[in-house]
């Protein structure tokens, strides 16, 4: 036993352990693990495997082979890692890395992909989905078509129609599955029930009227054959689309007007006069989004002023909070002063309150006609704090100063106190005035500690979503721009607003803007790491 221990201790030495040493270490580890840990490990892995297997099953049923393979592979690797006697670091790193890769690395890469597509309102799915959705939205009842008695049926929450055709044969189908013949219980020439489906009672039909009237069960795989729709849940009629899809030619023809809409590679059926049928579908558009962002005048102008303001906002915020914080740190870094603790606690309160709340409170106080600042502090003035493009920027900076100075105060206070007193005494003995002591000795020493934090603070403010969004919502709105953008928007709020607010969502353009931020942040990161050499120091 004692030799094992010796080897175990030796294994901690910097040089790579030999095979025998590793084996010894493993034996020691396994011996000390205990049965409880083993059971816990088996239970956790069992749960994980059960989830993985069911996930793979669901994905395979849905035909998502690639995703299913990835899930299976990850599950296999996880099992291998935890059942292996080695792979010790991997056992500690795997859980975090799985989340990191999926929700941080993958989504950034995926953002890059979306930036090259036309993804957004009207371009959400595949061409096939676009065709069926276009056909479904232009359905019209066929004049003098036969009536089909129907029973509304349900299978695991999906509604379907059990229809009886004029010949007395029963068919069942749903929105996604065309009608197919089934054996059914007949009652007075109408199919009322079939295996695997639950027939809805009259009360259920009433309760789900909205869903039922939306049902359009296609006759066959060919969308041109039309669909069955029921206005009342008991009889259905044949509906045919006014659009006719020619799969070979890839064209849509409006049979009422004769207009031909063809696929010209823009992700939507377009007529010769340039009219588009929406929804279209998702395609990759190359650098279109980037080109559009910088060459389309109505988009380029907002991009320029938003980018400039983002830099200005981040720089001024860092500078103003730093100088105020530093000033306060100097003022309060005097042991003769009484009550410093109380000032300190009161002054860091803004920092302790959740930012979104502070920003919302300021928004109320800065209201032009009813706000506290105009009405009470300024005695009824009408300062357009949030509605004038220039004043709104000033307001954002004031509020961000309020939010950020306590942090800089704390940081500078800490940095000042960590400067040894004897340096200062030596300077004083040499006859330096207080100001010279500060400027030539304290400030450079302080900056050494604080510089990386200033860079981090810049990077943070560059993407300071909450202050902008809660305080001004980016406003006042720029009415010339085709996208929802305003004069205090920074890049990240513009991304959010282009993607999720406004009349139409444009994920492609929003992602292209994200990529621009990504590049800027990368440059900042490179400068930061070069300057601070923090990466070289890692070991």
């Amino acid at each position: 036993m004692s030799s094992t221990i010796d080897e175990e201790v030796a294994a901690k030495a910097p040089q790579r352990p030999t095979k025998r040493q590793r084996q010894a270490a493993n034996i020691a580890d396994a011996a000390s693990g205990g049965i409880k840990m083993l059971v816990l490990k088996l239970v956790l892995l069992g749960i994980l495997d059960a989830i993985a297997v069911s996930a793979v099953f669901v994905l395979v049923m849905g035909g998502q082979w690639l995703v299913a393979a990835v899930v299976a592979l990850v599950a296999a690797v996880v099992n291998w890692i935890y059942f292996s006697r080695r792979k010790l670091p991997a056992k500690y790193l795997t859980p975090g890395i799985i989340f990191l890769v999926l929700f941080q690395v993958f989504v950034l890469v995926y953002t890059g992909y979306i930036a090259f597509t036309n993804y957004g309102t009207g371009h959400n799915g595949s061409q096939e989905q676009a065709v069926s959705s276009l056909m479904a939205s232009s359905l019209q009842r066929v004049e003098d078509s036969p009536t089909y008695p129907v029973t509304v049926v349900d299978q695991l929450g999906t509604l379907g129609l059990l229809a009886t055709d004029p010949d007395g044969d029963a068919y069942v189908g749903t929105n996604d599955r065309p009608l197919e013949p089934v054996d059914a219980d007949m009652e007075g020439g109408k199919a009322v029930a079939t295996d695997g489906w639950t027939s809805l009672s009259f009360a259920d039909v009433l309760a789900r009227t909205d869903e039922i009237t939306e049902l359009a069960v296609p006759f066959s795989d060919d969308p041109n054959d039309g669909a069955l729709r029921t206005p009342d849940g008991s009889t259905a009629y044949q509906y045919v689309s006014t659009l006719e899809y020619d799969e070979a030619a890839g064209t849509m023809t409006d049979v009422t007007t004769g207009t031909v809409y063809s696929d010209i590679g823009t992700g939507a059926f377009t007529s010769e006069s340039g009219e588009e049928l929406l929804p279209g579908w998702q395609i990759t558009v190359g650098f279109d989004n980037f080109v559009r962002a910088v060459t389309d005048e109505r988009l380029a102008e907002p991009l320029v002023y938003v980018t400039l303001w983002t830099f200005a906002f981040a720089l001024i915020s860092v500078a103003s909070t730093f100088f105020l914080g530093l000033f306060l740190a100097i003022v309060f870094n005097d042991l003769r002063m009484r009550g410093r603790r109380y000032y300190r606690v009161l002054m860091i309160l803004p920092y302790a309150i959740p930012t979104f709340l502070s920003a919302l409170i300021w928004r109320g106080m800065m209201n032009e006609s009813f706000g506290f600042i105009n009405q009470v502090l300024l005695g009824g003035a009408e300062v357009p704090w949030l509605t004038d493009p220039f004043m709104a920027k000033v307001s954002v900076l004031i509020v961000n100063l309020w939010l950020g100075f306590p942090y800089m105060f704390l940081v500078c206070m800490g940095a000042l106190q960590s400067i040894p007193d004897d340096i200062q005494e030596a300077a004083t003995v040499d006859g330096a005035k207080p100001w010279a002591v500060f400027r030539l000795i304290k400030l450079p020493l302080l900056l050494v500690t604080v510089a990386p934090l200033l860079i981090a603070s810049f990077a943070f403010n560059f993407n300071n979503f909450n202050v902008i969004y809660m305080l001004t919502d980016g406003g006042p709105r720029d009415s010339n721009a085709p996208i929802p953008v305003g004069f205090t928007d920074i890049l990240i709020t513009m991304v959010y607003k282009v993607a999720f607010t406004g009349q139409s969502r444009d994920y492609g353009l929003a992602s292209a803007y994200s990529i621009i931020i990504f590049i800027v942040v990368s440059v900042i990161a490179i400068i930061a790491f070069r300057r601070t050499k923090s990466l070289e120091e890692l070991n």
Partner: protein
Amino acid sequence: MAKKPTKEHRSWVEAPVVEAEIMASGLDLEAERAAHPRGVPVKRPFKFGRWFRATGWRHIVGIVMTLFALFPIVFVISSSLNPQGTLTGSNALFSSIGLESYVRILTDPQVPYPQWFGNTLIIAAATAIGTVFLGGLAAYSFSRMRFTGRRFGLISIVVIQMFPQMLAVVAIFLLMSAIADWFPAIGLNTQIGLIMVYLGGALGVNTFLMYGFFNTIPASIDEAAKIDGAGHARIFFTIIVRLAAPILAVVALLSFIFTVNEFAVASVLLIDTEKQTLAVGLTKLVSNPRYADWSAFSAGAVMAALPVVALFLFLQKYIVGGLTAGAVK
């Protein structure tokens, strides 16, 4: 240049030191003068001008800054106590006092404030615990083990943390909608999904804070435990975790506060009103402050801020240390 220091020209630094010495030594006046030939008096007559130049102006700065820091807080407390609803009615500070606004926000059937509060607590607590767990495990392996790819892993974490998840909010939304098509329980519009997304950011600055702290725990403790027969898991969970409790608390709290504040991703992923967090719900509640029930919002804001502020002030000492090590607000 070096003048003999007189009362007026004394350097502002040495005074506290000298005075402190005097206080400590407890010598009488004569002995003190003998000990300090420069003639520093023990008790001087109070002169306003001198006091003002030394510390008085500092108090003025302090009072001004305290007013600047506190007036929005006073305003929101006052308007939360105001039974009237409007923004205008809140302007006269503490003109009327009552708890009606608190009752209103807690019971209004249109505004599921208690649910938002509960959701926020659950999501933030789960994220905080998950972050500490995942980050702690990773930090332990980086700190105590030597393996191929370790330096690469450390550098990757430093680099990746520069890019906030918010940048990929569009992709996160689309990914979660795709997941919802197959696994509705963890996809879009679920709190579990949101927590999972937040955990994607667990191995970031937090890991680094913990890594730094773990490095300060001497490795000889591990070795002693190993000789006594403890395995790596036991060393981590029973020794390292306990010794590193302060930093774990800081990371948990920073992660908690971050999650409470997070708006962009939460607003996109949580669609149903009763599933949302305080940040999303309250922001939508006052999207037009002129027509909103401002007092009720203020009451909600005060209640939402209280736990965070209390935690913050309680753990202030630790947080400040953690903040200066990297995290930024």
